[in-house]
């Protein structure tokens, strides 16, 4: 659809993150996989190799591992602003799942939609916003077009 037909937002951060201290916005990640299905092979390998290191490196994120009979293994990421993002990891390798998990960790929970401007500032003007009266010499009486002798 067009940009007008789809939703969009301005560049923002959750709770001015980074101004004071940086808080990792991912609060919980759940890995739902099957113990026997072929599609969860990458997920099982990731659990064997990479998940413990990931959990140690991100102490602020709780990692849940739920083996249950399912055809499509999933990663469910919950963010501090309440958004929940679900990603299918069917047939992905352990490395791909690890990269996906890193990507989810680095995201803030804001929606991935069109960002209207790639910049945002709270102090848009230092010397004062220009308006048509800035640097205009004052005059007494109404402004008139210049007379015939001034025009070339």
């Amino acid at each position: 659809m067009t940009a007008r037909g789809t939703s969009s937002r301005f560049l923002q951060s959750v709770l001015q993150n980074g101004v004071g201290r940086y808080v990792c916005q991912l609060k919980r990640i759940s890995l739902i996989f099957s113990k026997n299905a072929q599609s969860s092979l990458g997920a099982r390998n990731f659990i064997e190799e990479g998940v413990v290191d990931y959990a140690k490196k991100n102490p602020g994120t709780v990692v849940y591992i739920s083996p249950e009979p399912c055809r499509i293994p999933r990663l469910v990421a919950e963010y501090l602003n309440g958004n929940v993002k679900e990603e299918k990891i069917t047939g992905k390798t352990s490395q791909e799942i690890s990269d996906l998990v890193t990507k989810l960790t680095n995201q803030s929970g804001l929606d991935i939609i069109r960002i209207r401007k790639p910049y945002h500032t709270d102090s848009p003007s230092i010397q004062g916003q220009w308006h048509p009266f800035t640097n205009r010499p004052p005059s007494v009486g109404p402004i008139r077009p210049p007379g015939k002798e001034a025009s070339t």
Partner: protein
Amino acid sequence: MASGLLASRGVLTLGLHYQHVCRSVLVTQTRQKKRWMKAYTRIMEAKLKLEGPPPPKRRSEKPNWDFHAEVEAFGARLQENFQMERLKAAFVNPCYVRVEQERRGALGLEPETAVLALKDNKELRTRGVALTRDFLSDWCRASFPSLPAEGASALVDHLMTPEVVCHVARNLGVEDLTMSAEVPVPDDVLYGTFCAVVAALEESSGPQRAGLFLRDFLTTQLIGKDLFDLWSVVNPMGLLVEECTRRGLPLPEPRLLRSAGASTVLPLFFVGLYCDKKLLAEGPGETLLAAEEEAARVGLRKLYGYTENRRPLDFSPAPQLHASQSNTQALSSG
């Protein structure tokens, strides 16, 4: 089951698959478009429209929840060292304790055996509120030294309104951990829980860390806000005159600087305030009075040092704590 065998041989070409559930029961399946799906979906939508959406559930009642791991992750995420029992006590609200007691009484347990060994967060809450207010007042006075007492207290009051505090608490994950009677957690309960968490932090790591926590999460809510949005001033000109007399400046005199479209439906007047023949502030408005009031507000902002182009506040990082030893314990099984 001769009939079943005959039927299966002839009908496989139609795409019907039979499943022997037991000797006398045969279940038919097709892999094509399900004919019952449309009716079922319509009935479920009608049921949803009648009954409304299902009631919200606490996060602790949904799958994948480990309270101890979540509380540890909460502390690690904020880079703060909390004492676990104090933090867990900070999340327990009196309404939750009351509801739990009632539930145990309704189950028929004896009152003595059913006593809930949970301490609620009443004292932590009052301490937290007092702590927050003191810290914010000191911080306001230190960051904006020219702001008078009413202005500073207006800023502090704004920062301590339930809307601001609950917005901060919700985006820090406090709502999931709060134990309260109703869900979603009401604003005053969440406010109390956040203040109790601040008090728990002060008990665990000292008042300095609690101050840094409040500075990093609560005072950042002032970014992008204008002074007179938070502090409603009815007579800015009078306040400006007071401020000038306090500083020993001569009284401001308003003068019309620019005007455009005075007889149209959108006139514009620029009024400047002069102290001792030097321009203090200028402000626009649709009428002369409005322009003078706006000029007075601009002058006040300049005198109090709360302009848009002021030096940004100092949020230099706190001295780093060592990585907490709780990260190994966070790998508990669900």
